[in-house]
């Protein structure tokens, strides 16, 4: 058994070998740290309106400037990161759970059940995932839980397909049959033997989905289909600021936008390097 010190050393070596992973983790650590402790250092509330100082350019008192209601953009961005991260994690978690459970079942059972599930994912994947999420929020109404559900539904097919594929090949490997042979009930073979062994690609996909979910959630909010103003959220902030870009107040949109991009970039770096690492292990 590896001791804690050995594990730490192993992890550090992994970071040295995979610079992109290190970069992604660094970006996200900074962003998450800022979102959690940052607001404590800023003397303004995210919703505090002050008409005296509206549309001020970045200054020492307001490092990202203020918006048309005189609200501090920095603090709104920090709160926005919190909400976006929360949405992203809920989306990835929901899609991961539902997708892997359904994918395992479908792959293990095969036959008609598998055909039906696969055609269903075909239908979902026929739409661009963002358009699908738009349609679902428009149908369900734009509250935060509905935004999570809508985006999660659009991601579920990836997880179903990935897990199903893994299960299809693992099913023939022997341990599933050996487990069947000693009288394990089917649910136990599926969810205790096969699923844990088929989880790796889905976990990598979940990391990538965190980044996409941030982009999708902001996108929905920008279009007015997701989180609604005045709630501070990345897309809402960009949307609010968009009106003033033309008149020269660039800071209203650029800072929130940059932070969204940074977060998505961080998750993608991590996801991509995890994919490389797991692919290497398989070889």
């Amino acid at each position: 058994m590896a001791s804690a010190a050995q594990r730490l050393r192993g992890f550090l070596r992994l970071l040295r070998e995979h610079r992109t992973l290190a970069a992604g983790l660094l970006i996200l650590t900074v962003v998450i740290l800022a979102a959690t402790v940052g607001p404590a250092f800023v003397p303004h509330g995210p919703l505090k309106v002050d008409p005296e100082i509206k549309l001020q350019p970045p200054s020492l008192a307001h490092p990202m400037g203020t918006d048309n209601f005189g609200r501090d953009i920095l603090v709104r961005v920090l709160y926005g990161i919190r909400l976006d991260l929360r949405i992203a994690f809920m989306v990835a978690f929901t899609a991961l759970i539902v997708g892997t459970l359904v994918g395992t079942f479908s792959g293990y059972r095969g036959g008609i059940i598998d055909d039906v599930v696969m055609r269903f994912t075909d239908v979902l994947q026929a739409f661009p995932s963002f358009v699908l999420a738009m349609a679902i929020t428009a149908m369900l109404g734009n509250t935060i839980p509905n935004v999570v559900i809508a985006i999660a539904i659009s991601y579920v097919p990836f997880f179903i397909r990935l897990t199903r594929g893994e299960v299809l090949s693992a099913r023939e490997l022997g341990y599933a049959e050996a487990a069947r042979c000693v009288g394990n009930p089917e649910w136990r073979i599926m969810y205790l033997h096969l699923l844990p062994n088929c989880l790796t690609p889905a976990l990598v996909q979940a990391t990538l989905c965190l980044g996409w979910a941030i982009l999708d959630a902001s996108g929905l909010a920008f279009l007015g289909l997701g989180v609604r103003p005045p709630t501070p959220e990345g897309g809402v902030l960009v949307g609010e600021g968009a009106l003033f870009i033309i008149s020269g107040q660039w800071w209203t949109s650029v800072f929130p936008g940059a932070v969204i991009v940074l977060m998505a970039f961080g998750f993608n770096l991590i996801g991509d390097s995890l994919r490389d690492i797991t692919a290497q292990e398989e070889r």
Partner: protein
Amino acid sequence: MILVEKDALLRIEGLYVSFPGADARVTILDNVSFEVFGKEIVGLVGESGSGKTMTSLTIMGFLPASGRIEGGEIWFGHDQLLDYTEEEMSRVRGRKIAMIFQSTRSALNPLMRVGDQVARVYRIQRGLGAGQAKAEAVKALSRMGIPDAERRAKAYPHQLSRGMCQRVLIAMMVACEPDLLIADEPTTGLDVTIQAQIFELIKDLQQATKASILLITHDLGVVAETCERVVVMYAGQVMEMATVESLFAKPLHPYTQRLLSSVLRVDRTIEMPAVDAGLSEDVAYSVAGCRFAPRCPRVLPRCWEEHPPREQAGPDHWVTCHNYK
């Protein structure tokens, strides 16, 4: 002693199984019949593709989805296994029939400690509690000749050698206390000394548990040393079935004769039988009668058309051939 009058533990009668081929379905098991009696080790021998593994998968109810049972019966005691639903089969598996697989390491779940995998069987099959099952699992592992079983039980499959993994798997299957244990080439990929140890282990277990064992192998030496009776298969048909002594002393079927003469021996000069050029397996599978006909040195015209009946040629010696005399 006449075999048919005894009550068989496992009786396969006229089993036909087909798989989709290039243009038509290929009958992969063609009228397979044999018996396994209580407390005996039966060897099922034949070359690759002769249907040995397919037979065992059919018994277990593990036939791949594309396979179809076209006819026949599999009796286990007084139960017809082919009539069983998947749920009923899952109660037979383990408790009554267990199987040791070919690929040793992959038959263990890579993410579970081996001790837990064995303990799981005690919990399912005997309804033991977690602690008790764990203690039984360690005991079972040490019975399998695993030294330091307490510590090895905490290992994951990748931390153990292939031979060790095979012992763990056998421990799992024996923990079920089945009446019939099917061992499908249990030593593929193990080196020769470990192979010998595994076969010793299987023999000892059979003595201790009084289970019957159906040992699937292509190694005639193993059969001679381990088994009491042998079933010889070729291209999905049973050619001959006899006690080990009788079969090795007086093989009757031309196929068995050639099979035995293919075993290398120091006291005999090698006479390579002429390779039957241009004869692929496909030819054999398309023959309506005896599938060995295309390669048989004593083939008669009727062999091509008529499937020979199973004939008793001696006490405990059965042969499926028109021209064995």
